[in-house]
C-alpha cells in the first residue's frame, strides 16, 4: 500500500486522507461520482444513517469524517478524510486510532444496499449544489470560465456533474461508479504528531491492504495538459444576464506549450501579475484606477490555464478588461522590477511555509506534486527552486499566455 507519513509534533490531532484517483472520462463520471460521494457520506452497512454516523463521531470526541471530490488536471480525486485527537491529549489517554480505522473501513468498503428513495434523495442534494452556485457571483464567474475554456474536455464539467445526467442516474450506475472508484489507485496520507504511533502504517496496512487491488502508481496515471492549449482559439465573449448590483467578470486564456519546467516560474509570475497585494492587477486595477474591490488571477497549472476574475461596475467593463490585458503585456515585455520579482519569490516561500501549518494542505501538497512532477518534491526542493527563478524565466512563461475568452455576469441590466 502507498502510505505516507507527515510527522509534525505541534499538532494535537491526527489526520488521515484516503485517496482514490481515476483518469477523468466524461460528464457521466462526474455526475455519478458526485452522487456516490453524497450517498456514501450519509451511511454504510453498519452505520445505516446520518444519525448513527454523527453519534459515532461524537463518541470519538468530535472526530470528523467526510468525502471530498476534486480535479487535479485530468485526474479525478475521490477522498475520504478523518481527523481525530491524539491520545496524549485525551482524558485517561484514551486511544481512538483502532476505532477510527474501523469506522473508516466501514465507510469505504462496506457500503449499504442503497434504496431507490435514498438515491432519489441524494439526487436532490446534488442538484441543489449544481443550481446554487450561481448565487456566489464571483466564484461562479471564475468557474464558468473554467468550463468555457475546457468545453470540449471532461475537465470542463462542474465538479458535481451535469443536471440531466444526475437526474437519470440509476442504482446500477452508482454501483458501477463505486466499483470503479474502489478499484482505482490508492494513496493514503497520515499527518500529525506520530510519536507513539510508530506502527501506524502497519496498522493501516493490516486493515486495508487486502482491499487494495490496483497497483498502478499515481505518478504513472495519464495526464496531458498540453492538448487544449496547443490548439488555435478564436477570441470569444460570453455573458449571463443577472439582475445584480455588481457585475462579475472573468477573463480566461491558455498557457501555450506549457511544460513541467514552467510550473514553478508560473507561480512566481502570478505573484507579480495577479495574486499578491503587490501584484499588477491589485495595484493598477484596484488601487490606481479604483475599479474594483476584488481582483485576482489563478493559474490552473495542471491544465495550463489562467483565469482572472473581478467584481466591477458594468459601465467600467471595457476599461477593466483592457487594463487587465495591459498588465499581461507588461509582464511579457519584462516591465517589472527586480524588487517585484523578489517580493513574489518571498511570498511564494511564505505560502509554502503556510502549507506546513495545515495537515490537510501538507497532504494535498504531496499528492498534487506526484501528479505535477511525477515524483516527490520536498518543501526544501521547491523553496530552493523558487529562489533560482530569474527574470528571463518569468518573461518566458508570460509569453506563453494568451487571453482568449471573456465572461460577464449581470452586465446587461446595470450597464
Amino acid at each position, binding site marked *: 500500500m502507498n502510505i505516507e507519513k507527515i510527522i509534525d509534533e505541534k499538532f494535537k*490531532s491526527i489526520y488521515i486522507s484516503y485517496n482514490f484517483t481515476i483518469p477523468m472520462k466524461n460528464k457521466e463520471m462526474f455526475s455519478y461520482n458526485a452522487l456516490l460521494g453524497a450517498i456514501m457520506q450519509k451511511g454504510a452497512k453498519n452505520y445505516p444513517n*446520518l444519525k448513527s454516523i454523527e453519534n459515532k463521531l461524537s463518541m470519538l470526541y468530535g*472526530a470528523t469524517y467526510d468525502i471530498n471530490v476534486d480535479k487535479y488536471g485530468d485526474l479525478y480525486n475521490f477522498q475520504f478524510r478523518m481527523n481525530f485527537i491524539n491520545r496524549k491529549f485525551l482524558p485517561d489517554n484514551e486511544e481512538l486510532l483502532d476505532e477510527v480505522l474501523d469506522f473508516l473501513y466501514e465507510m469505504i468498503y462496506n457500503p449499504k444496499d442503497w434504496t431507490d428513495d435514498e438515491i432519489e434523495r441524494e439526487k436532490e442534494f446534488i442538484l441543489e449544489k449544481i443550481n446554487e452556485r450561481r448565487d456566489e457571483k464571483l466564484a461562479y464567474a471564475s468557474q464558468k470560465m473554467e468550463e468555457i475554456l475546457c468545453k470540449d474536455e471532461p475537465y470542463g464539467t462542474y465538479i458535481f456533474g451535469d443536471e440531466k445526467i444526475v437526474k437519470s442516474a440509476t442504482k446500477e450506475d452508482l454501483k458501477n461508479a463505486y466499483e470503479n472508484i474502489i478499484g482505482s489507485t490508492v494513496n493514503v496520507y497520515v499527518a500529525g504528531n506520530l510519536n507513539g504511533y510508530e506502527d501506524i502504517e502497519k496498522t493501516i496496512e493490516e486493515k486495508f491492504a487486502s482491499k487494495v487491488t490496483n497497483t498502478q502508481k499515481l505518478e504513472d496515471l495519464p495526464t496531458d495538459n498540453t492538448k487544449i492549449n496547443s490548439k488555435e482559439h478564436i477570441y470569444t465573449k460570453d455573458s449571463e444576464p443577472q439582475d445584480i448590483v455588481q457585475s462579475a467578470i472573468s477573463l480566461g486564456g491558455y498557457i501555450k506549450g506549457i511544460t513541467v519546467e514552467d510550473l514553478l516560474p508560473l507561480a512566481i509570475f502570478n505573484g507579480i501579475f495577479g495574486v499578491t497585494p503587490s501584484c499588477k492587477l491589485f495595484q493598477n486595477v484596484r488601487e490606481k484606477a*479604483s475599479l474594483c474591490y476584488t481582483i485576482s488571477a489563478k493559474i490552473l497549472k495542471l491544465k495550463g490555464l489562467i483565469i482572472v476574475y473581478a467584481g466591477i461596475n458594468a459601465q467600467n467593463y471595457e476599461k477593466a478588461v483592457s487594463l487587465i490585458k495591459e498588465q499581461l503585456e507588461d509582464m511579457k515585455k519584462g516591465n517589472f522590477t527586480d524588487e517585484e520579482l523578489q517580493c513574489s519569490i518571498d*511570498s511564494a*516561500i511564505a505560502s509554502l*511555509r503556510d502549507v506546513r501549518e495545515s495537515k490537510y494542505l501538507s497532504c494535498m501538497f504531496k499528492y498534487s506534486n506526484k501528479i505535477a512532477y511525477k515524483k516527490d518534491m520536498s518543501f526544501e526542493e521547491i523553496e530552493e527552486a523558487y529562489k533560482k527563478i530569474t527574470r528571463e524565466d518569468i518573461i518566458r512563461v508570460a509569453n506563453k499566455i494568451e487571453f482568449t475568452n471573456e465572461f460577464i455576469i449581470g452586465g446587461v441590466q446595470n450597464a
Partner: protein
Amino acid sequence: MRNMTVEYSKELDESTFSTKLSNGLSVYICKKPGFNKKMGLFGTKYGSVINDFVDIETGKRIQVPDGIAHYLEHKLFEKEGANALDLFSQMGVSSNAYTSFDQTVYYFETADKFDESVAMLVKLIKEPYFTAENVEKERGIIGQEISMYDDNPNFKVYFNALRAMYQKNPVRIDIAGTIETISHITHELLYTCYNTFYSPQNMFFIIVGDVDVDKTLDLIEENINKYPNPKTSEEIQKYIPEEPKEIAQKEIEEKMDIFLPQLCIGYKLPLCSGYDIQKNEVLADVVGEMYFSKQSDFFVNMYNSGKVNSSIDLQYEGSKYFSHIMLTTTTTNIDEVQKDILKYINKIKVENVDNELFEIVKRKKIGETILSADSLNIAYRRIIDSILYDTDTYVDVEILEKLTPQDIKEFLNNLKEDNQVISKILPKE
C-alpha cells in the same frame, strides 16, 4: 519587571501571557510551540456601532457618517500612497484587516519576518496619513465592496434580520455603510475618529505563535515608544441610542436574483454580562448540535423528507451593545421549513432535556475544544473575546465543562414568540 498575568489551559495545553504597557496598551501573547507561523494583531475597541461620541480633541459631541470605522480601516492600512497589504507583501508577509460592530483589527502572518512585521504594523497604525485626495480615491474601491455585499444573499438575510430586531441600535446599519453615507466621509472626520479611538488605552496588541515572551514584549514596547503618547481621556464618551425591548418588525423579506432561498429566524435578547455572552456562545453551539445538527432526529427528518439539504445553524451573538440568537438555513421549501422549525422550537422548550444526548454532545464539544489548539486563528479570537467581554481567556473551556442540562433548558426559554423575527431572501420570479 513587568506585571504579567499567565493563564493556562490544561485541555489545550496552551498558555496566554498578558500585561499592560506603561502607556496603557494591553498586550497578549499566546504561545504556540512548534508552529512556524506567527500572527500579530493590533486592534481597537471601536467598530461600526459607534457613530456618536465626544471628539477627544475638541471635547464636543459629534455624529459621524455610517461606515466611517470601516473607511478608516481602509485608509489607515495605507502609507503615503502604498497599500499596507502591499508593504507587507513586499516583505513576503501576508496581512489583512477587518471591521466589525465593536472592533477594528489589523494583522499580519509570517514565519521569518516577525520583528520587521511588528515594526511595520505599529508604524502603520501610529502614522495615519489621510488627505482629501487619498480619501477620495478609496471611495470607488469601498463602493465596489458595498456592491459585492449587496449581491450576497447570506449577508443580506443576516443584516435584514438585524434590522427587524433592532429599532435604534446602529447594529442595524451595514458595517461598511452605504454608497450615500460614505460620500460624506472626509479626511478631517477620519482624523477625529482616529484620534478618539486609536489611543493605547482603547487598543490591544496580540501575538500568537512560538515566540519568546519577554523579547516580544520588549519588541512591541520599543516600537510603540517611538511615538509620543497621544491625548487620552479616562473614558471615551460614546452615545449608543437606548434600544427598546421590543423588536422593530416581525417579518422582513427581500427578493434577489438567486436560486436558493435563505431563511433566518432571529431572537432579540436583553443585554447581558461578558461572562453570559461567552456562556451563550457555548450554549448556542451545544444546543445547535443537540437539536438541529445531523445527529438530531429533527434534522434527519427534515433531510429525509427533502425539505433541507444543507445545515440548520444556530448561533448567538453578543456584545456590550446587542444580544441575539439566530437560526439560519437555506431551502427551496422556505414556508414549510419555517413552520416546521417554529413548531419544533415550541416542542423542545417544554420537553425534558435528553441527558444521554447532552453527554454525547458535550463529549464532542470537549474534543472540538482540544482540536481547536491546532488553529492559530481560534487562539486569537478567544483572546479578542476575552478583551471585549472582560473575561478570562479560557473561560469558554471552563463554561463547557460546567454545563448542565438545566442550562440548556434556560437557553431554550429565550426562544420566545414576542422577541422573534423572520428574515427571508427569495428568488426574483
